[in-house]
């Protein structure tokens, strides 16, 4: 699913279709852990600990992982709601932050939809006012902003005359999430971060909202970062998938590769944890046991080794880099890295020649 020809090029378009829309390099967020009554730091929570990835123009990048793996922190870092401890974010070739793209310009191009549809709308504002807020902040006159808000309400399938003046509590969960989507689109962004946008909705509404998101993507030429813990939804929505574990990227690649040929044991375990529809293929033991380790003190070497069935002594020593597997597929596992010392690692070319 590349960019479709339906939408005209965005006015902020710079680098052409080949340049990634968003590049993330070495993104780190450590939260100081405060303890004692004087508030001295007792350590840091390594919520996001060195993450690199790119989002191509017009694609949907799915982001999956257990709770606490750093999905939400990543989304808030990208939205600049949190200041990163280290690392850089590049939007269409432009650096972001000091000396680069300013906060307001960045916000105009990157917007976000939150999981909790009720908490993300001001209860004291009619929904059309909530949608019109961002354009007003960016200098659109009130009347024009309101007209734009009504247009967007229609675009997300809500009759403006019927819903515009209502307060959030008078709408259903699905309607509220449509309003939130309209609100995120009000600045005509290029990248929309969808942080679990359908997790709080029931199944029938979920499907409608997902279809709406697909339609809007074509219509407005959007790029999505789609965060979810629901693997089926990600498989349906995403072009590429990134799997995170304990603040790091475990595996990244095209959706067919991730779901068809998972190279990281964590991805394989996640996929195996999906309930099957076939009662004969019911599994009797949990694919993954226990909770992820404490991100204050992550395991040495490979962070997944404490729960991995294939862990070997080398895993505690070497931190696995993202090993390319071709086709943009890469996994941070020593079993995917030639010559890593793991017994299941592929043979290096020299070793193959020697044999």
């Amino acid at each position, binding site marked *: 699913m590349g960019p479709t020809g339906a939408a005209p090029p965005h006015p902020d378009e710079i680098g052409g279709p080949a340049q990634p829309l968003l590049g993330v390099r070495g993104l780190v967020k450590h939260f100081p852990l405060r303890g004692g009554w004087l508030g001295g730091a007792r350590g840091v929570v390594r919520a996001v600990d060195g993450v690199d990835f790119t989002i191509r123009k017009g694609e949907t990048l799915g982001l999956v992982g257990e709770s606490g793996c750093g999905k939400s922190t990543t989304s808030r870092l990208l*939205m600049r709601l949190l200041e990163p401890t280290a690392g850089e974010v590049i939007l269409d070739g432009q650096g972001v932050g000091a000396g680069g793209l300013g906060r307001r310009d*960045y*916000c105009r191009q990157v917007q*976000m939809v939150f999981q909790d549809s009720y908490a993300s709308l001001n209860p004291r*504002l009619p929904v059309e006012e909530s949608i019109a*807020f961002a354009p007003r902040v960016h200098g659109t006159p009130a009347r024009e902003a309101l007209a734009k808000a009504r247009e967007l309400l229609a675009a997300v399938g809500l009759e403006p005359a019927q819903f515009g003046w209502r*307060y959030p509590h008078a709408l259903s969960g699905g309607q509220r999430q449509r309003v*939130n989507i309209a609100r995120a689109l009000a600045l005509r962004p290029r990248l929309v971060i969808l942080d679990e946008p359908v997790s709080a909705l029931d199944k029938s509404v979920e499907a409608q909202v997902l279809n709406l998101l697909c339609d809007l993507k074509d219509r407005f030429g959007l790029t999505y970062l789609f965060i979810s813990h629901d693997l089926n939804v990600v498989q349906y929505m995403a072009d590429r998938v990134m799997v995170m574990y304990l603040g790091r990227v475990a595996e990244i690649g095209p959706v067919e590769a991730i779901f068809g040929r998972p190279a990281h044991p964590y991805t394989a375990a996640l996929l195996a944890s999906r309930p099957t529809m076939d009662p004969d293929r019911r599994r009797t033991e949990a694919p993954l046991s226990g909770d992820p380790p404490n991100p204050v003190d992550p395991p040495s070497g490979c962070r997944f080794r404490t729960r991995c069935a294939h862990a070997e002594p080398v895993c505690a020593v070497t931190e696995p880099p993202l090993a390319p597997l071709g086709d943009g597929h890469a996994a941070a596992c020593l079993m995917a890295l030639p010559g890593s010392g793991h017994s299941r690692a592929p043979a290096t070319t020299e070793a193959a020649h020697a044999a």
Partner: protein
Amino acid sequence: MSDLALPAAAVPAAPAGASYWAGVRKRLMRDPVSLVCAAVLLLMLAAILLAPVIAPYGPYTGSVLRRLKPIGFPGYVLGTDEQGRDMLTRLLFGGRLSWFLGITPVVLAFGVGGLLGLVAGFAGGWVNMLIMRTTDVFYAFPSVLLAVAISGALGTGIGNAILSLTLVFIPQIIRVTESVTTGVRNLDYVESARASGAGAMTIVRVHVLPNVLGPVFVYATSLISVSMILASGLSFLGLGTQPPEPEWGLMLNTLRAAIYTQPLIAMLPGLCIFVTSLCFNLLSDGLRAAMDVR
């Protein structure tokens, strides 16, 4: 808060915000308790404002010959006090000062405490620490004791009574405002407003203040009755209002000697304080219910 440096964009107040208050009024109108309380308070307010017109005598004119006459004594509907002054007149004039002492400290504390609480809640970090820990120092004392101590240290007089009551209420209002603001600040709609690139002042004005003001206002309304009782208490103790000024708390004090001879008369100022503070309390309860948007 680096955000504070950003220029606040001009966002006109939401025109549709009025319909929220229309809803509040509608719900308040359906609540009989609130309606009765509001009616009693309005009646009382009208009576004390019109005291010079409707009072049958002057507030200071008395006669030793007509001391402590019972309720219904000819010419004195509510009898006379220990100096032969007409009780109805004294109560009407006394209400002016009692109401003034009840409302002024709360209004002042609402302004100062609300602002400090909002800043503490929205800014967080060391600003919050500074404001809240200072608040805790005041909070450590029971409010009656604090009011008496400050008033006693400052000396007698109405101005000092108001000042001491304001100082008693500021920490309480800071506490409530800070906790409401902290709760609102962490909600996603404030985050999404930040994500739209808005400056801190705009976010506070459009998204934080309207959601904080309601609960704090209701809390402040409930403090009016406390303020009235504390002010009466200060007058009773001889701090605050001085005789022969009519004030309900002070009247209660001077009439206490007559409690065995004319118990009904001695109770009248207390009854006024009781009814007024009860009405303010019930009205603030009704207001809280009416302002709840599910």
